[in-house]
């Protein structure tokens, strides 16, 4: 007598892309973290100068005639929040099988990324410093340029996720969850950079 075959269990949810995204995000965080740590080290080792109050001594890191365009920087920071909400909305909609809202959410994420990159270019144009004078300028353009590339990579992720949804692969929850995770990670990195480079200066 043969035992009846067991019924197939529920299909295992694959999480390959999500896990890989988590590793990539960790790697990118290490990249930005390392660069910001070097920024802090250089700032700590900078010589001192008398502050504008004529009494206290401050680090001669950011030259006194250079003004950080704080409006553009802070606008970028808040735009990241919108991108995260949109990326999470895509996950929410996909779980409910709502293709049109998933597509819309991803499209808005994509355009939000474009807006962030546009704001970064505007900031570079407003800050009016060149790359060749001192360590601050070299490191400012390097760290913000690397962040720009990281945002561009997140934008490519949004584009790929959107094309997959448009092609009918609405069941790719793993990809959309990974996409949202990446945006959260990139936002966290930008928040750290924003505080160190644009707020603390």
């Amino acid at each position, binding site marked *: 007598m043969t035992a009846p075959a067991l019924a197939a269990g529920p299909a295992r949810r694959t999480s390959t892309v999500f896990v890989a995204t988590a590793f990539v995000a960790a*790697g990118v965080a*290490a*990249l930005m973290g*390392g*660069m910001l740590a070097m920024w802090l080290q250089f700032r700590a080792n900078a010589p001192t100068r008398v502050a504008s109050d004529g009494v206290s001594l401050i680090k001669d890191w950011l030259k006194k005639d250079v003004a950080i365009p704080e409006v553009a920087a802070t606008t970028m920071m808040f735009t990241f929040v919108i991108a995260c909400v949109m990326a999470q909305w895509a996950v929410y909609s996909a779980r409910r099988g709502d293709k049109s809202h998933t597509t819309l959410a991803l499209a808005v994420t994509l355009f939000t990324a474009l807006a962030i990159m546009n704001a970064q270019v505007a900031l570079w144009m407003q800050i009016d410093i060149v790359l060749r*004078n001192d360590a601050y300028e070299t490191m400012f353009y*390097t760290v913000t340029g690397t962040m720009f590339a990281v945002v561009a990579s997140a934008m490519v992720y949004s584009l790929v996720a959107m094309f997959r949804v448009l092609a009918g692969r609405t069941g790719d929850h793993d990809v959309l969850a990974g996409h949202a995770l990446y945006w959260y990670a990139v936002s966290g990195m930008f928040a750290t950079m924003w505080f160190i480079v644009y707020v603390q200066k």
Partner: protein
Amino acid sequence: MTATPAQSVTGSTPGSSRSLGAIARWLTLADHVRIGMSLVGGAALWLAIATVLGAVLGVERFDSAAALVDAGAHIQLFSMHQFALVFGVAAPLMLGVAIWSVPSQLHASNLSLPRLAAFGWWSWLVGSVIVFVSYLGNGGPGGGAERYVEMYLLGLGLVIVGLVAPAVSLATTVLTRRNGQPLASISLGSFSALVGAVGIVLTLPVALGTTVYLWVDYVNARVAFGGADLLSSWLGWALREPQSLLYVVPALGVLGDAAVRTAKSRQPLRGVMLTGVGIAATVVLSSVTQQAHVFAVGTSPSETLQSFVPFALFNLVPLLAPVVVILLSLLALRAGKPALSGAFVASFLGVGMIFTGLVGSAAMHLDALNLVGTVFGEATLVYVVYGAVLSAMGAIALHAGTVTGKALPDVPVTLLSLLGVLATVLASLPHYVAGFLDQPAASAMGFDDSGVVGVTNIATAAGHVLMLLVLVAFLGLFGSSRRADTVTDRYRVEASA
């Protein structure tokens, strides 16, 4: 893609078509066997370069007054030797072996994201070729040709990306393709591959960020990082101990697996073994501090303690990883049917050499011994990297039967391992001695080469040449085993009903 039976070619396909087909398959490779073997093959090429460089440097330092190579190229030769050992051999070799064998250990058909791993292989290959060419054109650290220094930094960036990408693929494979096995139950080889891969993912991007800074600064003002002469001081932490332990962590798993599969036993104190391998992950912190932590006795107990804590964290704690694995692998051997095998001998000696290198590194960071800045540091790196080469030989012997269907014969592997250990000791130990005699690091001139120092340098040259011969012989053995009759695979684990 594992355990593929030999496929018979039916019909008469012209030889040129077959060759073109093979090239096309290699160019578009997306399976773990080809990607892993490509990385191992690339690392073997770099090992040949490293051994030749080591031999040339040994002969060059035999007589510090005579110059075999132009004195202006010495800095580049030393730097290229270091690059070859770490980013040319240790990291890609261990990653390649892990990619080649881990899916079969997990009973998975392939890697997760195999094209990402393939991208990593191509990126590493292109980057390492660029680095090689840049050295030939007077680039690299201390280089005088601007274009080639820029090229070096570009190549280094590509090499780092090329190591991180397969590491992501490997770590994802271990976490998502375990076929329902708990993480604590997977083979030690897979677990150590996971630890090593995560370590690479978390530390090498930090080196990439530094490389980007260096490149931007070098191309523009050169006001922040000091130009080509100081490249090594900014990136040196990624090319020495304890960071090098992260690249060779998979060697620990190879030893653990070789012991239980040789003795046909279960691993006693498996939890302790996993913890031992996990201890190696503490090295990740080295990318945070990026400096050597020397222990010096202070004028007060608190000052001494302040110096001892970071020294212990970065130099003594990582030592526990190979110690635990070596002791517990011997226990596993005793628990089953005690026997020796080629895979066990190679991996045991390999981890032993890695341990010797790490002990040397810890000793070097004792201020009282005054070894920093001597050739002692070069010897510790050679111990670790050549130890990894021996472990890779053990891994290939251990998994060849499962992955390729053709096991390696035991006796030649054992003999080559013994020769390999002789080569490693010859290439390293004399420099431990020369370090105590104050022979300076990264210098071929301006020191007293009389007596023992001269002998130690020529002995290291002989050791590197012997390692080259071991490499050629092992490649020959692996190639001939593919064509020879099938040998019984003594390491095969039969699936339980």
